[in-house]
């Protein structure tokens, strides 16, 4: 069996994220949908509902009276917060394992994914972008491919690393050359299999901007920048180091100056302890 066939077999064995995610994402960035529409989708999934309410009622959020239904929770905490909790809850299992090939201990991928999502949303807000939830979720799941590719990266680590060091390839270009596929491509295949929107599949596929023609797509550029910022502040950086390419065109496209990056880092760092708490309650 070829490596690619083996990988396809592995992604078919992945436990999919709950269906509520794709249903939610279909309506959540649509301005015609109401809070009630969104609350309805969530409350049809009893497992997700129970778990979301438990989180909302945890000490972290400090609600004065406990939320007893998703509608309560939405009215007390706002729809955005609830959607985020649902997304985090539904992806935790898929993203919380350790990645030995990438040198990420247990929980490191989860922290990386959540931080990327929060930073991507910060960027989306700062530059008044639409589809904030699509951007948040794409950033959250952009490295899902790593969870499957991990074992293959571990087996070929010396070869991949040698291409990075001696031929100045990015880590993902080296993955592609040695294994035949990189983690972004594989992530897009998983997203497609889980029936995520073509938009999200595309963002995940191109989140390292390996294909320069994608740079004009602001949503891809936002998720790309969130990833770069995580690397700069040492979140989710494992054996691959910071060996990915920096793209100035993407900064131009977004209208981001270097000071904007510093401000985004400062804002994120200020909230870091809250983020650490959030990681625990979810």
């Amino acid at each position, binding site marked *: 069996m070829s490596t690619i066939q083996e990988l396809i077999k592995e992604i078919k064995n992945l436990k999919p994220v709950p269906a509520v995610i794709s249903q939610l994402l279909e309506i959540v960035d649509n301005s015609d949908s109401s809070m009630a529409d969104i609350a309805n989708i969530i409350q049809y999934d009893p497992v997700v509902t129970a778990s979301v309410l438990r989180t909302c009622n945890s000490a972290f959020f400090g609600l004065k009276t406990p939320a007893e239904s998703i509608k309560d929770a939405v009215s007390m905490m706002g729809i955005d917060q609830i959607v985020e909790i649902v997304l985090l809850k539904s992806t935790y299992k898929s993203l919380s394992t350790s990645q030995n090939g990438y*040198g990420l201990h247990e929980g490191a991928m989860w922290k990386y994914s959540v931080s990327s999502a929060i930073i991507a949303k910060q960027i989306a807000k700062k530059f008044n972008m639409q589809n904030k939830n699509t951007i948040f979720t794409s950033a959250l799941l952009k490295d899902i491919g790593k969870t499957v590719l991990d074992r293959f990266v571990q087996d070929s680590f010396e070869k991949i690393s040698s291409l990075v060091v001696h031929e100045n390839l990015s880590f993902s270009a080296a993955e592609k050359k040695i294994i035949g596929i990189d983690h972004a491509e594989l992530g897009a295949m998983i997203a497609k299999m889980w029936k995520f929107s073509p938009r999200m599949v595309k963002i995940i596929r191109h989140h390292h901007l390996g294909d320069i023609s994608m740079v004009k797509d602001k949503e891809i550029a936002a998720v790309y920048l969130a990833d770069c910022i995580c690397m700069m502040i040492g979140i989710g*950086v494992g054996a691959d180091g910071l060996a990915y390419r920096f793209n100035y065109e993407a900064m131009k496209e977004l209208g981001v100056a*270097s000071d904007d990056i510093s401000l985004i880092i400062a*804002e994120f*760092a200020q909230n870091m302890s809250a983020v650490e708490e959030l990681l625990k309650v979810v």
Partner: protein
Amino acid sequence: MKVSNIPGDDLVTYSLGSCIGLVIYDPVVKAGGILHYMLPDSTIDREKAQNNPFMFADTGIPRLFKSVYSFGAKKQRMNIYIAGGAGILDQKGFFNIGKRNYMALKKMFFKNNVLIRKQNIGGNVNRTIRIYISTGDIFLKTSGSREKKV
């Protein structure tokens, strides 16, 4: 920032990325500290610098020295080690925050006559550093390899 003069302590700061880990240690009083700062210049957001001065080189570095001085440490005896300041491939100029973090420190040290004893800076590797307070031994771990004594 972490400081200590308790012999059994080891201080560690993980996963520096473009941030700088600054370790200072006075072998006479056996006291030291680590600062992990993320950005070069606090003028970008004074309010955040007030709430979290350790985020920035210019507000964090003086606080690290003062805290270790409080254990009786002296500037002229201080062993100084820095690591971090990595960059993404092709990240240059103002966008290279790792390099700017390094330059901010160099500038302050030059003004204040402080010498760096050893350093491991730049490139695109991730670093973690640790210091043992009883001996002042410093260990560096870079992405993809094991922890090594500096």
